[in-house]
């Protein structure tokens, strides 16, 4: 028999342009917390070790207002304009 595939659909992600990183230091690093219990403390702990043992400085920080909410597009754009790397906890 012929059936209609119940999983069928079209890929839905719109392209997002990468931000040009000219002038941003190679090691510009930020933290992004999803605000689940312990996530921010975990990131702060990792950042402290990176500063002490790897010489990172000026590590940025941003967080979601609450774990249940998505990260605001503006926050993502803002981080992308300033940093080359991000440590995200807990990844979503």
């Amino acid at each position, binding site marked *: 028999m012929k059936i*209609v595939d119940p999983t069928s659909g079209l890929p*839905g992600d719109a392209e997002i342009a990468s931000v040009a990183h000219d002038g941003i230091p190679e090691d510009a690093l930020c933290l992004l917390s999803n605000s689940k219990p312990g996530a921010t403390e975990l990131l702060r702990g990792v950042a402290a070790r990176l500063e002490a043992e790897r010489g990172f400085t000026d590590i940025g920080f941003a967080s979601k207002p609450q774990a249940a909410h998505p990260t605001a597009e503006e926050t993502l754009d803002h981080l992308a304009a300033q940093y080359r790397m991000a440590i995200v906890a807990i990844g979503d």
Partner: protein
Amino acid sequence: MTDVLDVPDLSPAEWFGWAEEKGWSDGLPTIPPTEDLVDAMLAAFGGDPPEFAPIPPARMIPTLRSVAANAVMAGCRPADLPVVVAALLGTMAPAYNLHGSLATTHPCAPMVLVSGPLRERLDFNSGGNCFGQGTRANAVVGRALSLVLRNVGGAIPGTMDRSTQGSPAKYTFCFAEADSPFPSLAVQRGFAADESVVSVMAAEPPHNVNDHGSRTGEEILVTIAGTMAESGSNNVYVRGPHLLVLGPEHADTLARDGWTVETIRERLWELARIPLERISEGNHVQFDESGIKPEQDGYTISDGAGQLHICVAGGPGKHSAWIPSFGATELVSTRVAG
């Protein structure tokens, strides 16, 4: 791209196992979405083709055919498809927060509340046992929505659906509101009484409010407020909407005593407070970090009277229900096309 699959001719029992192995089922038997059944369902779809958004977590955009295929699998009749589509469109509104509600550890399910003339035309149950088993429309419409989210969106338990315990409402959570002394929820939200409307919210299953003893509306509200003042609810610190479904007898008592939707809402906002001693020290800290402070003698439920939505459903008896939400969601109402 074809969406048609050639599969072996299978008996109903064989199909059940086959679909299960493909990962297409919620654990209950399904109807094979054969081309003729899907075409019949599509032929009965009135309005313009809907513009669907990507469904997270897989971020796939469903087609009307794939929605119809899932509706067939759930047991829908062709006339049910516009209701399923309206519910799906509601969950795609950014305010609903579909991604968060599907990937969360919280047990929320997509609640579907049907208002307007379609309730009777499609035999939705707004009366006795309206949250329970026994009515095809309630059973299959809620189930179809959950199957679309699973099969197209990839919200599969254990992988992308990370709910700690889930809830029975994840199979299907659909009911209709009853006529009552109060304006319907749809009318409260700006729709005309002759429009059929579907409202969705990422919600916990109903929490029962048993009140056989109270004799006045004020007394009933004291009992409802006690049920709402629950220290483990997302509405305490994530805030967001919640829904009070008054049983008809409680609604009649409240109306007899002169209460309106607005005054019920305001009174429950005043009464529903969680005493400080019922919140643990660690949660005080977490609430504070979320910007939630107690008000005088306790924590409030959400951040204002307006977050409480009110409708009436159910049969005879002295029960009502409070439906807390995921918090990071909104009640989204969509007119049913056609």
